[in-house]
């Protein structure tokens, strides 16, 4: 047996052993393939936007596959919005939507950038596409509400009516 073949065998054997050991203890641990991306997302979720962005940028460099890359770009867009760097946020949202123009979170986040920049027509367009993809998304409704508050502001008017109606009397 040549040396490379032996090496390969040992490596496979080790993996099998670990696998058997894990199943015997009934523990299956799936480690994150891209820890920087995962930790970056966790930091963003915790509100630590700057750390989150740094980690996600590192995660983007080693991102494998469409899903990881889109998650990284989406989170960078969100992270830069959180730290109020709208230019960078827009760059990553644009990159994301160039990869996948049906990414509703990307549409949501870019619409928010446009609302903040008072580019309301562009925001409307992104929201319309986002809502076609995911009509029930709450954040799309929130951003749509923010857009309407800018373009069609309203004030609430509450009428309290104690006058007796015929129906109430019939009851």
């Amino acid at each position, binding site marked *: 047996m040549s040396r490379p073949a032996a090496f390969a065998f040992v490596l496979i054997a080790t993996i099998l052993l670990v696998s058997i050991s894990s199943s015997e203890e009934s523990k299956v641990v799936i480690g994150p393939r891209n820890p920087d991306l995962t930790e970056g997302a966790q930091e963003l979720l915790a509100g630590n936007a700057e750390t989150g962005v740094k980690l996600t940028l590192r995660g983007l460099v080693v991102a494998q596959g469409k899903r990881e890359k889109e998650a990284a770009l989406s989170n960078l867009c969100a992270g830069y919005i959180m730290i109020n760097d709208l230019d960078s946020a827009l760059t990553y949202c644009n990159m994301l939507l160039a990869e996948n123009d049906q990414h509703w979170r990307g549409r949501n986040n870019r619409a928010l950038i446009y609302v903040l920049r008072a580019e309301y027509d562009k925001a409307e367009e992104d929201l319309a596409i986002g809502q076609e993809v995911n009509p029930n998304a709450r954040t799309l409704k929130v951003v749509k509400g923010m857009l309407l508050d800018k373009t069609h502001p309203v004030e609430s008017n*509450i009428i309290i009516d104690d006058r007796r109606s015929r129906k109430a009397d019939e009851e």
Partner: protein
Amino acid sequence: MSNRLAILLIAICSGLATLDVALSDNDTRVTRITHFEDSSSDRIPTVTAVPQYPEKARRDRIEGEATICYLIDSRGRIKRPSVRQSSHKMFAKPSMKAIRQSSYEPLRPGQNLSQVKSCRTYRFLLNPVAIEEVE
């Protein structure tokens, strides 16, 4: 942009988290209030609580109304309130809350009124505002 940032929705799949970002809007909302009292009633309101316009309804530009029926006891307290009609379930909750916080003048000594069922309708409307007023 102000610092009123909030992450509103998080979807986590297989260790990856994707964020949607939206800002929480803590602006004080202007509310106009109109109260039509019932001139045929002997019971006089003392506290008339105003329901809060449901934020979701306001955001989605939904108008509607809810009618709450209740009894008024001799001490002017609201008893057994129930939703008689509601155009949308989001209007029922703030209306019930408001009616529970409302009250009437207690009966005077010797005054004897039967517990009559009263109903109050809350109308939730949205009026357009000129953009200059908001900015």
